[in-house]
């Protein structure tokens, strides 16, 4: 029904200029202005390129978003998914009016509030109470609204004792709690939540996600949720929009959207060394399945995968090799030292099984190095990366698992 539509995004595009701003900028500005006064179109709008971060382009203008359109109905939780650089944050920025679109329009029937980051505008010299008012007002509440919710906000934050102390004396955790308490009592018609919000301790995350569910289920308000966490998206949202390189790739019910995303985002890349200046020691890195076929989409937990390295030792002797998986949060997860000695042959194909059973769902980077007694022949922290789909019940519910790896042993249960 047309009537229920609360937010309508029509052909939103956003262009960015790459590189640094300097003396060159003014010539473009003059040129643009010259076109404008002659009633012509902005010349730089035509030369924008698809925003693909990894390929080198010829134009310094890129489209961070290109012709994005969708509608959101009242009370719906819409998930916006896409890889890094797909345009999610830009879209959120435009929705929350932080920056304007280059072309297109967004029409809304309700107040939009965004939780791009909590605690914006906190002043360290002011007390907790003063900051509640200031922060609330920045987020769009009136003084009266804040006054009526003040007690609730303070008790939700759990900072009663410190409420009349300047915020600079707070621990960082207390600042976040206070900030989130203010945000939690916002009552917008449409709430825009970025995943960035979910950075923080487990308790905070749980509160944030719980609050979002409350907002839409009990109050019937609309939520736009942006995330990489497929499990959380699947759990929370009813519909999804998949963005890729600034374009809408898919829009529909959440299950199909997530499936589409997983199938179509090539989350595993093959690494092939094509440096010409250096000898290729680690020549190729890729992931293969049990049959040796190289894999380019997301990994599923139930299957077996292998990490492959093609090494070219270039006749150096006594070298050591090792590889480590690094998590998204940049923690080293598990190392695979190579303990055998390299023989005379200078080319090797090393293969090791990925311990998918103990890995949590998420993105991983593969670090590898070839060295000998302090001399590093070849090393990179990010030869390739891959996505692993989490399948435990806990992960699917969007809860955060604290451990770095998962247990693969079984519980022994007995009724007593």
């Amino acid at each position, binding site marked *: 029904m*047309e009537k229920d539509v609360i937010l309508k995004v029509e052909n939103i595009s956003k262009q960015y200029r790459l590189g640094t701003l300097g003396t060159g900028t003014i010539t473009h500005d003059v040129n643009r202005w010259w076109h404008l006064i002659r009633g012509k179109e902005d010349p730089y709008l035509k030369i924008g390129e698809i925003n693909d971060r990894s390929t080198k382009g010829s134009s310094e203008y890129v489209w961070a978003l290109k012709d994005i359109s969708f509608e959101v109905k009242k009370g719906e939780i819409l998930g916006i998914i896409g890889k890094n650089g797909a345009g999610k944050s830009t879209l959120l920025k435009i929705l929350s009016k932080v920056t304007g679109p280059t072309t297109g329009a967004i029409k809304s029937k309700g107040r939009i509030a965004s939780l791009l980051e909590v605690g914006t505008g906190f002043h360290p010299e002011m007390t907790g109470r003063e900051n509640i008012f200031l922060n609330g007002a920045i987020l769009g509440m*009136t003084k009266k609204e804040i006054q009526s919710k003040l007690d609730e906000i303070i008790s939700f934050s759990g900072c009663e004792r410190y409420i009349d102390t300047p915020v600079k004396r707070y621990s960082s955790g207390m600042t976040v709690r206070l900030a989130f308490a203010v945000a939690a009592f916002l009552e917008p018609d449409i709430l825009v939540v970025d995943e960035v919000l979910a950075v923080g301790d487990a308790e905070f995350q749980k509160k944030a996600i719980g609050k979002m569910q409350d907002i839409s289920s009990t109050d019937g308000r609309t939520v736009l949720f942006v995330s990489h966490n497929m499990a959380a998206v699947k759990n929370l949202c009813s519909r999804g929009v998949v963005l890729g390189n600034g374009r809408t790739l898919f829009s529909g019910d959440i299950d199909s959207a997530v499936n589409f995303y997983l199938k179509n985002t090539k989350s595993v890349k093959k690494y092939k060394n094509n440096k010409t200046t250096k000898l290729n020691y680690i020549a190729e890195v890729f992931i293969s399945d049990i049959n040796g076929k190289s894999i380019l989409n997301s990994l599923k937990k139930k299957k077996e995968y292998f990490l492959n390295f093609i090494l070219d030792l270039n006749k150096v002797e006594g070298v050591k090799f090792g590889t480590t998986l690094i998590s998204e949060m940049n923690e080293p997860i598990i190392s695979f030292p190579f303990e055998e000695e390299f023989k005379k042959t200078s080319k090797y194909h090393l293969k090791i099984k990925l311990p998918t059973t103990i890995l949590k769902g998420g993105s991983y980077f593969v670090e590898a190095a070839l060295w000998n007694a302090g001399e590093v022949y070849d090393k990179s922290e990010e030869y390739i990366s891959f996505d692993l789909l989490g399948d435990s019940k806990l992960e699917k519910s969007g809860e955060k698992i604290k451990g770095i790896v998962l247990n693969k042993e079984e519980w022994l249960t007995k009724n007593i």
Partner: protein
Amino acid sequence: MQKDKWLFEITPKNNLLDLNLKEVWQYRDLLMLFVKRDVVTLYKQTILGPLWYLIQPLFTSIVFTLIFNKIANISTGGIPPFLFNLAGVTSWNYFKECLTGTSDTFKKNQAIFGKVYFPRIIMPMSTVISNLIKFGIQFLIFLCFYLYYVFDGSEVRPNNLILTYPLVLLCMAMLGLGAGMIISSMVTKYRDLTFLVSFGVQLLMYVSLVSLPYSLFEKNNLAWAVDFNPVAHIVEYSRYVLLGEGTVSQFGVIYTLVFSVVIFLFGILVFNKTEKSFIDTI
């Protein structure tokens, strides 16, 4: 089918003079909270606290009196030199604070502007208002000295035109805010202006009649140097209405009024145009 009613639209372009006063009004509490923040936090954790509001103009006036009137022997007519300077410094300070306070609006607040939306003009407006409070305090101290000199038998008397003094303040606010908004908008892309402001304001002070009377410029055939400076007219005019001495011309008054309004409107125009996408270029 009935046409949908939208609460608001987000589009790339907005009307040039779309001040969106309704929205500013909705955010009036925020405006007052920012004012409160500025006033309260400025001198936190200082020993003298708000006394700094007074020390700065008093000492400036004392130094000016020593240099310009005692050493350089510049005559201030029948007015005690210290009062002459204090009147000039108090007025000039308000303009200066408005200008420098608003001229880095976008740069100073990019963290907060990058995260949440509220009418951006709230920020410079709050600066102008909190400076008004500061001005009020400084004006009170001026009044104290004023009364002292009156009882001491000096020939200072306010003019009938004293009633127009609020208008003088308005003019200064418009001028400072307007110029500040223009500069802050341009600074988002080209940082050069930041350097200009810091030393330009200093230079401007010398041709703004803060410590020199208009008659002195006239005597040296340098009137042209101040005639086109609206701030000079404002400072001279305010001294005229407060102390009863000064050179006020019809040209000066009209020129200043028109100039202030034009700068102010132009400032809003430029500011409005910038606020939508400055976050991409800053």
